[in-house]
C-alpha cells in the first residue's frame, strides 16, 4: 500500500517531465519536422489542392493549437491513424513493439548476465593478469564501431561467403526454431558491442563495493572470499546494476535497435519510428514519443521501488 502510494506520488511529480518531453519532441519532430504535403499530391496539383492537403494534415494551424490538440489526443488515448498507410497507430504499435522486444531482449539479458559474471571474475582476480586481460578485451570491444560489427557478423554468419548458418534478413517467426534462427546473429552483435561497456561498469561497481570497510573486516576475520563476493558484495552492488538495467528497458521496448533492424530488415518499432520521423508521419511519431516518456517514468519509479526491495533500509522519502 505504501509502495502504491509512493508510486502514485512519484507519477504525479513526473508530470512536468512528461510535459517537457512531449513539448520538446513536438517542437522538433512535429512542428519543424518534414512536410508530407507533396507526398499526397498528384503530379500536377493546383494551389487549391495543395491548400486542401495542408489543412488535411493540420499544417495550417498555429503551434499552440496543434500542441494542445496533441495533448488532448494523448489524454483521451486517441492516437489516430498513420498519415501514410492509414493504419491505426495502436495497431502499428501492437504489431511492431513485440518484434523489437523479442529481438533485443535476449541480447540485453545476455550482455547483462555475461557482463556481471565477467566483472565478478575480474574483480575477484583484481590486479592479476586475468583482470588485466579481461579489461584489455573490454576496451577493445568498446572501441569497435557497432556498424562494423553488424557488417562483419552478417557476412560471417549469414552469407554464402561465410558460414551461412542463419537467415540474412526478415522476421518470419512462427516457432521457437525460427525465432532462434532470426534472433541469434543480432543477439551476438548486441552482446559483442555491449559487453565491453557492461564489464567495465559492473567491475567498477563491484570493486567499489569490495573496498568497503565491512568487506575488509570480514576478510580479516577469515571469511571465504568467494562466499563474501556472492553473499554480500554482489547483493550490495545490485542497486547500481538494477538501476542501469531498468533505465535501459524502455529504450529496448520503444527505441528498438535501429541499426540492427535496418540492416537485417526486421520490422521493429525502432525502424518504423525512424521512418516516420524521416517521412513526417506525425501520428506515429507522437505516439512513440509519448509512450517512451511514460515508460521512462515508470522505469524511474520501478528503480526506486526495487531499491527498497533489495535493501529494506531505504525509505520512501
Amino acid at each position, binding site marked *: 500500500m505504501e509502495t502504491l502510494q509512493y508510486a502514485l506520488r512519484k507519477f504525479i511529480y513526473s508530470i512536468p517531465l512528461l510535459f517537457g518531453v512531449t513539448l520538446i519532441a513536438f517542437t522538433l519532430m512535429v512542428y519543424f519536422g518534414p512536410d508530407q504535403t507533396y507526398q499526397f*499530391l498528384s503530379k500536377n496539383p493546383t494551389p487549391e489542392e*495543395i491548400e486542401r492537403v495542408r489543412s488535411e494534415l493540420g499544417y495550417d494551424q498555429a503551434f499552440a493549437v496543434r500542441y494542445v490538440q496533441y495533448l488532448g489526443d494523448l489524454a483521451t488515448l486517441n492516437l489516430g491513424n498513420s498519415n*501514410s498507410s492509414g493504419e491505426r497507430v495502436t495497431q502499428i504499435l501492437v504489431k511492431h513493439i513485440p518484434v523489437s522486444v523479442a529481438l533485443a531482449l535476449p541480447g540485453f539479458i545476455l550482455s547483462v548476465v555475461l557482463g556481471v559474471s565477467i566483472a565478478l571474475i575480474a574483480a575477484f582476480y583484481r590486479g592479476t593478469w586475468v583482470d588485466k586481460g579481461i579489461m584489455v578485451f573490454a576496451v577493445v570491444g568498446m572501441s569497435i564501431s557497432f556498424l562494423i560489427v553488424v557488417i562483419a557478423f*552478417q557476412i560471417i554468419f549469414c552469407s554464402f561467403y561465410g558460414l551461412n548458418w542463419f*537467415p540474412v534478413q526478415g522476421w518470419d517467426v512462427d516457432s521457437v526454431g525460427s525465432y*532462434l534462427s532470426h534472433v541469434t546473429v543480432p543477439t551476438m552483435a548486441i552482446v559483442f558491442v555491449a559487453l565491453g561497456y557492461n564489464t567495465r561498469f559492473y567491475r567498477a561497481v563491484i570493486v567499489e563495493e569490495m573496498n568497503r570497510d565491512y568487506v575488509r573486516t570480514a576478510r580479516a576475520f577469515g571469511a571465504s572470499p568467494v562466499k563474501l563476493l556472492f553473499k554480500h558484495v554482489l547483493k550490495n552492488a545490485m542497486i547500481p546494476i538494477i538501476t542501469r538495467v531498468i533505465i535501459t528497458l524502455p529504450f529496448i521496448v520503444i527505441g528498438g535497435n535501429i541499426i540492427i533492424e535496418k540492416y*537485417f*530488415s526486421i520490422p521493429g518499432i525502432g525502424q518504423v519510428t525512424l521512418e516516420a520521423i524521416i517521412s513526417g508521419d506525425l501520428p506515429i511519431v507522437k505516439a512513440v514519443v509519448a509512450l517512451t516518456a511514460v515508460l521512462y517514468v515508470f522505469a524511474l519509479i520501478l528503480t526506486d521501488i526495487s531499491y527498497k526491495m533489495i535493501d529494506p533500509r531505504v525509505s520512501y522519502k
Partner: protein
Amino acid sequence: MIQRIFFLLVALFALLTFAGCGKSDSDSGSSTETPTIFKYSTEGAPISMDPVRAATKYANLMVTSIYDTLYEYKYLAPPYELKPRLAAAMPEISDDGLVYTIALKEGVLFADNACFPDGKGREVVAADFVYSFKRMFDPDTLPQGAWLWQGRVKGAMEWRESGTDYSQPLSGVTAVDDYTIRIELTQPYPQLMYTLAMGFSSIVPREAVEHYGKEFGINPVGSGPYMMKDFTTKLAKLVANPNYRDEVFKLAEHGYRPEEHAFTGVERIEGAKLPIMKEVEIHFMAEPVTRWTSFLKGSEVQYATMPLEQRHAVTESVNPLVPKPRYREKYNSMLIPDFGLVMVYINMDDPRIGMHEDPDQNRRNQLLRRAIRKGYDWEDRNNRFLMSAGSYFPGIIIPSLEAFDENLSRDTVTANFEAAKELLKEGGWTAENLPPLEYGAVTSVRSKQYFEQFRGWMEKIGYPTEKVVYRPFPNFGDYSKAVKNKEVMIMPMGWGLDYPDAENLLQLLYGPNESPGSNAANYKNPEYDELFRKAKEMLPGPERTAIYRQLNEMIVEDVPVIVGLMRRRANFWHRNVIMYPSENVHGSVLKYVKVVPESESVQPPQ
C-alpha cells in the same frame, strides 16, 4: 557458482547455434515436392494500397495484384500492348474519338471479405467502376492520379466542384447497364486506354471503403488474383483469391515470341489457371546487399537485383548479361530496362543559371548550361554506377518509344571537358564569377557518390570545388517540396513513364505545368507550349511524331534539363521459378509466376 553460470551460457549458445543450423538444413531439403509459395522481393515498400494513391511502383505492384483494372498489358510485351482484363473486349470508340463504350465480363466476384453482407464477395458491376473513378476526384481520399483525366473526362471537375456527392452523376463516366461503362471526353485523348490499365483506375467495392474507412489503404479488397493475408513494412503475404474468375493463360494472347521468351520456360505455363501460386510473399528490402545475400541463400527470396558491387564476382559481362557458370547454373537472369529515364533538371526560374530578362545575361546563362552539359559525362556515370548497362541519348524521348529520333546528334551527351571550358570562356565565365551550383538530392550513400562524381566533372571544366555544393534532403517529400517551391538549382530526378507515349515526357517541360507541377525545370517557352498543345490532341501518326521531335530539339537547344539515361538492371531469379519479370510500373506479373520442384528447373541453354 561461476562455473555453473558459465556452463549455462555455453549451453545457451550451443542451443542457439544448433537451432540455427537445424533451420537452414530443413529448408534446403526436399526437391521433389511442389512448392506453393513464391518469394518475391523489391527494393522499396508500398505505403498505402488504396488505388487512388498507388503512385509508386511498389504500391502499383500490390494494387494490380489485388484489384482488377479494365485493361492490362500483355505479360510478355509490357508496356506496349494492351489486352482486356475486367473488360470483355477492347472498347468501342466513336468516330470523333470522344466516346468510349466498354463491356465488362459478367459473373466476376469480389474476394470474400468481412465488409460484405455475410462476408461473401458480390459481383463486380459497372457502377463499381463509376464509384472508383469518382473517388479519384474526391479530395478527401487524397488522390494522386486525377491529373491523368483532369480536363479531359467530361464532368469530372464539375463533380468535384459541386461537392463530391457520390449520389450525383459524373457526366463523363456512366454505367449504361450493369455490364457496360461509357466514358465521354471533352477532347480526344489517345492515351486514355493506357490510363485504364494503371493501378489508379482499379475497381474498388464501396462496401470496403466504407467499412475500413481510413484503414482501407492497408485492407485492400478487390476482384484480382490475390488477396492480402498479412502486411508489415518489410513483408506482404498474398494468397490466391478463391473467388477469382476462370482465367487461363494462353501464350498467343500475351505476345509470345520463342526467340525472346523461351529462355524463361514460360511455355510450360500454357493453359495454366491463374493465379498459379497459392501464396506469394513480397519482401521489401531497402538494403541491396541484404537483398542479394538473401537471394543467394536459396531458402529465402527467389528474385533479386544484382547490386553494382557484385558485378565482377557474378558476371563475365553485364551488357550483354553473361553470368559466370556457377551462377548461370543456378539462376536465370535478364537485363531489364527501366521504362523511363534519369536526368538533371536545371531551375530555369533561377536568374543565376536559368532564363534572364537581360538578353545578354540570358545568352551567357545558356552557355553556362551548355558547358555543364558538356561536362556531364554520361559515359562515366554509366560505366561506374550502372555497370555500363544503361543507354544514354540526346533529348528527352527514350529509345524504346516510336518518336525517338535516331538521327539526333549525340554531341550533347558526349562529354568533352575542353569544349566545355570553351563554352564557359565564350560566355565570359571565370572561376570568380561562376555562380555556386547547388546540387539537390535525397540523402543516401549513393547520391553522395553521384554528387562527388558530378563535382569531379565540374572540377575538370574549371569549376572551383567549393562552388559545387551538395544539398541533401532527408526524404523525398522534403526534396520535392523544395523543388516545387523552386528552391533547388540542380535537380537530379528520374521519371517513370505512365504510358508508352512521348507526350508523357514532353509534358515535363510544358510551361503551364511549371512547379508545383511536373515541369520541375520551370521551363517556359511560348513556342514550345503552343506546339505541345497542338500535339496533345493528335492521334498517333507521322505528323504527330514530327512535332514530338521538333519539341525534343527545342529542349536540346535550351538545356532546361540534362538528358538522359535509361537504366537497365541485372535481375536474377532461381531456376525453379518460371517467370518473365518486369521492373516497370505497368502491372503485376505475380499471377503468372510458377515455382516448380528443383528437379524440374528450367535448364540453362547449352
